[in-house]
Every structure is written in structure tokens, then in C-alpha cells.
């Protein structure tokens, strides 16, 4: 079963790469066909990726969300899923130009991690695991999409008048609004992640908040996006400033995910 999972994972990765290539061709050759092919490839790769995750879950007898490899591959899956939802909902194929490289990089990071299926340590044997990690994955995926949208916003301002891009990239106000909605989705799920994590920590470690680096950085990320929302309201920080904030916020997310685990010791060392 693990062999099939590896094959599906590799195929998904190749598919993501091909989808990324198609999206690049779409904006450089300016042919709509590449956008459609890229989207189709993204959907097929997501299906293969889902298959790999299901097989891993079956082989492990649990949800595949407990170590660095599993979280990374789920993170890439969520980013792909959320970006597809946004692409279809807002008819916005250019989003994949920025989302696919992030997805591909995270898949690459996952590929470098150990894929051994190990039984769960006692602290991880809890029904809260599924809620806590899946909400974190959706949250990180949504923040990833908001960062991609922020990057599009910033680049859009630098590109001279281009009828093709004008046709395929929403106007600044809409772009800003979609990024805002993506941040809202991310923040809502991050709150849910922190809340479910606290309830679980109370049962497993006896304290719902221990200022562990992972907890602390989740709080820092939460505050960063809370500041983003307040500044939008108070100072009208929309457009460029909000786009910069969305990209900077995602750096914080990545540090919470990878940086904390590799640089700071804590009780979340397995995550």
C-alpha cells in the first residue's frame, strides 16, 4: 500500500509541476488554453494527492496528519484545494501562477521528510488530533492563498497596461477583497486551531496554555492578522499596504510551521 501511496504522491507532484508550467505559459504565451489545461491538471493532481493521503491513512489506521511529512503534504493539499475554490469562485486562473509554486515547494519539503509510518505516541492518541490539525491545515492554506493574492496585487501595480492581464486579473478593489476574504477564512480556522489545541493540551498535558513556542507563534500569527484587520478598518490600509501585510503574515505562518520546529525546542517537537 505504501508503494502505491509513493507512486500517487510522485504523480501528484509531477502534476503540480505541470500545472505550474501551464500557468506560467498562460501568462507568458497569453493563450487561454493553457489556463484550462493548468486547472485540469491541478484538479487531477489534487485527486491523485487525495488518493495518496487516503492510502496513507488506511495504512496507518489514522488520519495522516501527525508528523512533518504528513502535515506538509496535507498543507500542500489544502493550499491546492483552497486556491482551486478561489480560482473557480472568482474566475481567477492567474491565482495559480502564484499558488502553484508555493504548493510545489511545500510538496518538495514533504518529499524530503521521512515517510515512515510510525505508531502514535500516547499524547497524540486523541480525537482532538483530527480537528486540531485539519483546522490548522485549512488555516495555513487560506493564508497561503492570501499571500499569493497579495503578491499578485503588488506585481499588478508594476506591470504596464496589458489588456490580457487586465482581462484575467480582477481589478485592484476585487483583488484586495478576495485577499481579505482569504485572510478571514484563515483567521477563523486559526482561532479554531488554537481553541481545539488548547482543549486537547488541557487533557494531554494538564494545561491548556503553556507558552510553548508553537503556541506562542500561533498567537503571534493570530495577532499579526488581527492587526491586519484593524488597520484595514482604521487607516483604510487596503490595496498595497494590505497586500504587503498578507505576504508578511504568511512568513509568520511559515515560521510557525517550519521555523519553530527546527529552531525552537518545545513540546510540539513532533508537529
Amino acid at each position, binding site marked *: 500500500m505504501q508503494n502505491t501511496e509513493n507512486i500517487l504522491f510522485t504523480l501528484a507532484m509531477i502534476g503540480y509541476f505541470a500545472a505550474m508550467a501551464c500557468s506560467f505559459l498562460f501568462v507568458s504565451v497569453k493563450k487561454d488554453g493553457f489556463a484550462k489545461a493548468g486547472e485540469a491538471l491541478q484538479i487531477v493532481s489534487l485527486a491523485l494527492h487525495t488518493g495518496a493521503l487516503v492510502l496513507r491513512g488506511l495504512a496507518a489506521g489514522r488520519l495522516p496528519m501527525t508528523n512533518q511529512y504528513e502535515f506538509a503534504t496535507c498543507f500542500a493539499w489544502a493550499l491546492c484545494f483552497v486556491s482551486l475554490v478561489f480560482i473557480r469562485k472568482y474566475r481567477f486562473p492567474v491565482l495559480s501562477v502564484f499558488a502553484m509554486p508555493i504548493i510545489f515547494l511545500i510538496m518538495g519539503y514533504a518529499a524530503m521528510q521521512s515517510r515512515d509510518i510510525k505508531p502514535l505516541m500516547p*499524547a497524540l492518541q486523541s480525537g482532538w488530533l483530527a480537528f486540531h490539525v485539519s483546522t490548522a491545515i485549512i488555516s495555513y492554506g487560506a493564508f497561503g492563498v492570501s499571500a499569493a493574492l497579495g503578491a499578485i496585487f503588488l506585481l499588478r501595480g508594476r506591470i504596464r497596461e496589458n489588456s490580457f492581464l487586465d482581462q484575467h486579473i480582477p481589478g485592484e*478593489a476585487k483583488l484586495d477583497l478576495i485577499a481579505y476574504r482569504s485572510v478571514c477564512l484563515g483567521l477563523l480556522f486559526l482561532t479554531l486551531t488554537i481553541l481545539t489545541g488548547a482543549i486537547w493540551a488541557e487533557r494531554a498535558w494538564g494545561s491548556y496554555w503553556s507558552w510553548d513556542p508553537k503556541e506562542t507563534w500561533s498567537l503571534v500569527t493570530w495577532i499579526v492578522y488581527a492587526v491586519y484587520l484593524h488597520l484595514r478598518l482604521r487607516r483604510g490600509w487596503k490595496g498595497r499596504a494590505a497586500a504587503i501585510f498578507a505576504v508578511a503574515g504568511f512568513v509568520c505562518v511559515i515560521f510557525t510551521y517550519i521555523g519553530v520546529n527546527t529552531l525552537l525546542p518545545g513540546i510540539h517537537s513532533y508537529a
Partner: protein
Amino acid sequence: MKKIGKFLSSMGFAVALLVILAAACALSSLVEQGLTQETYAARYGEGIASVIMALQVNDAYHSVWFIVLSGFLCLNLILCNLIRFPAFVKRWRKEKDPEAVNTAGDLGDTETGSPEQVLSAMRMPDVKRCRTAEGREALFSNRNAIGQWGAWICHLGVLLLIAGFALGQMTLQETVIWGVPGDTRIMQETGLAITIDDFRTETREDASVAQYVTEITVTDPATGKSEQASVSVNHPAVAGGFHLYQNNTGPAASASVVRDGKEIQRKTLLPQQTMAESVLGLEDQPEYAFYFAGVRTMREEGQEERTLYLYDLYRSGVLQQGYYFLGEGSVTVGEDQITFTPRTFTLLVARKDRFAWLALLGGLITLAGLALAFYLQPKALWAVRQEDGKWILRGRCRKGKTLMKEQLEEAVRAAEKEEKQVAEH
């Protein structure tokens, strides 16, 4: 005074506090908490160690400045919610008020022949008929008025969460119960006697640990009533209002002194106990005292790794000798035989946080507030009949007017198309 109140309740002050708190949390997470100045000096040098101690970064989250900052944040939330409450009520009423038909809205004007159809397509079927100040026929519909309470509710939730956490920390009762099976410990806070009946490490076929389980008996000396309970990771037990958590395990030992075939002394030796706790300064010092210096692993060439248990033996307060054994071992001192037996200790943490429920409630309210603020955005649409019989559609949506305008245009086009089809038939 009014100016100070305005400043303390302002969003600018809130943002400044949030930025400072985030920066403080981020920086403090880079410094391992709770170490001594000597340890910091060894790691970062004397200068930085002094700064860490002076700024209380060694215990940042309990430091005076962190508590003061959090206090200001709470004050800001209280004032902000109190001051803005009347404005929220006013805006809530306004959201539902058909008086809006006399305003221009913020979506611009869109012409349509069938306003009811458009309103229905915009999922606003609850239409009120009214008239403008000029006496023109008008239709008004709104939805998600409750959504404008989202931010207020979210602030309330954060406030309750911080209050629950702070009160919980201030009144927290915590103690540890540790020992080996057979030991009984008294929980000073409740007077309950906790007897460790059994401790086991459940393993799987691949030798990985599946669970740590401590079986205990809780006895109330006042009533003599006993109750058995099982404590394992993720499955705490409750005793005397305290939650008991399986927290740790590791090597321990027991020492037994036998004289003339009779056990005259027995002691559980735990590794984290200091030399002072184990041996010195005891008024009622028994004849023998023991210090468990922990375990060391050794591997000789071609052999499996083995564990050595190290002990110091004191008699009448004087160190006799240090011993190490691979597993159980005995020594003879005079006419006494002293046996050291390796054991495994279990450590339970007993905690009573009276305000955890408040923090949880705060968290849930925060979540509800965010969901309301993000996904129930107040929208209002109205149509005013013109002299030529056509209708002008107007509307408002504070946070999503770009998308609402697009949706509105789409709904108008769909209605026109349908109208055309009906006319053709």
C-alpha cells in the same frame, strides 16, 4: 480625562498594544524561559544575560511589563466595547430600517424592470414595501443585520478569554504526586490520600509505547471512603476537584534494610530528589539514608546496552559508600543486608483551574464573533420606482461592496434575460 479615556479606548492604542505584545511574545520565544543568570551567561555572554534578567525576559509571560501590557489591552477592550455599544445598537437598528430608500447607498444606481426578481436572486426575498420621502413606491430588503455585532462579540470573547486565563493563573492550585506502586502520598490541598496501586507502560508489537497507565486509589481520611481511578495520557482522572494528569515516568528504585530476617527500613528512591531532600537535614533521620544518583547506560564491545543504577548509602548521616548495580543488587553493612531494587516511577500532576471554563467560553465567543463578522456581513438592497415606471436599484454592504455590485449586476442581467424570454413566448 475625556481625552485619556478616548485614547485608552482607541483602535490606534489597541493596534500599538497588539504589535508590542506580538513582538514581545516572538522575542521571548527565542529565549528559553526559566533558566538562571549563570546559564544565560554561559549561552549568550554576561552582558546579554544581565539584560535578560533585568528585563525579566527569563520569565517574560509572567513579568510585570507583560502583565501591564495585557492589563491595558483588557482596559482597551472594555472601554471600546462599552463606548461603542450604543453606536452598535444604533447601527443595528439602521440596518433594518427601510428609511434607507431615501439614501443613495454605496453601490451606485442600477436600472431594472423586475426588482422583486433581482432581490430574490440576491437571496433577499423578505421584501418590505414602502414609500420614499417624495412619495415614490419603494421596495426594501436586508439580511445579516446580526453580522454587524461580530466585532463587538469577538472583543467580548477575547476579554473573557484573557480574564479566564489570568484568574486561572492567579488561583491555580497545582501539585505533583509521584512514586512507585505501593506508595501513598497525601495531597496537602485536599487532604486526600493517593495510593499508587499500579503503573504500567503498555507497548505495541514494535516495542513503541502505546500508553502510560497509573492505577490509583483515592481515599478521603475524613470519611474513610475510597475510590479507584485510572490515569493515562489524554485521560485525566478527577479527585477532590483536582484533575490528575499522567505527566512523566522514569527509572526509580527502592531500598530495603533487613536485620535478623526482618525488614526494618524501606524507602522509595526517586531520581529528581536532591541530595538534601534524600539524605540531609532530617531531624528524625533513620539509621540509613539513601541517595539515588540516577542511571547510566553502558555498552561493552559485542554486548547489548545495559543500564547501571547508581546509589549512595549513608549510615547515621555519614556516607558509607557509592554503589552501582546492573538491576537488583545487595550489600551487607555489619549485620544488615541492604537491597536496592530498580523500579519505575510515575508522576501525576494534580491541577485545579477554577476559571478554565471562562477561558473556554471566551474562546468560543471569540470564534462566534469572528464567524459573524466574516460570514454574515450586513447587506441591504432597495429599489425605487421612477416616473417612467423603471426601478432604480441601490444598496449598501460595508465590507464587500465590490463583490455585491458584481452579484447585483449579474442578477439584473439574469432577470432581464428571463423577462425577454417570457416576452418572446
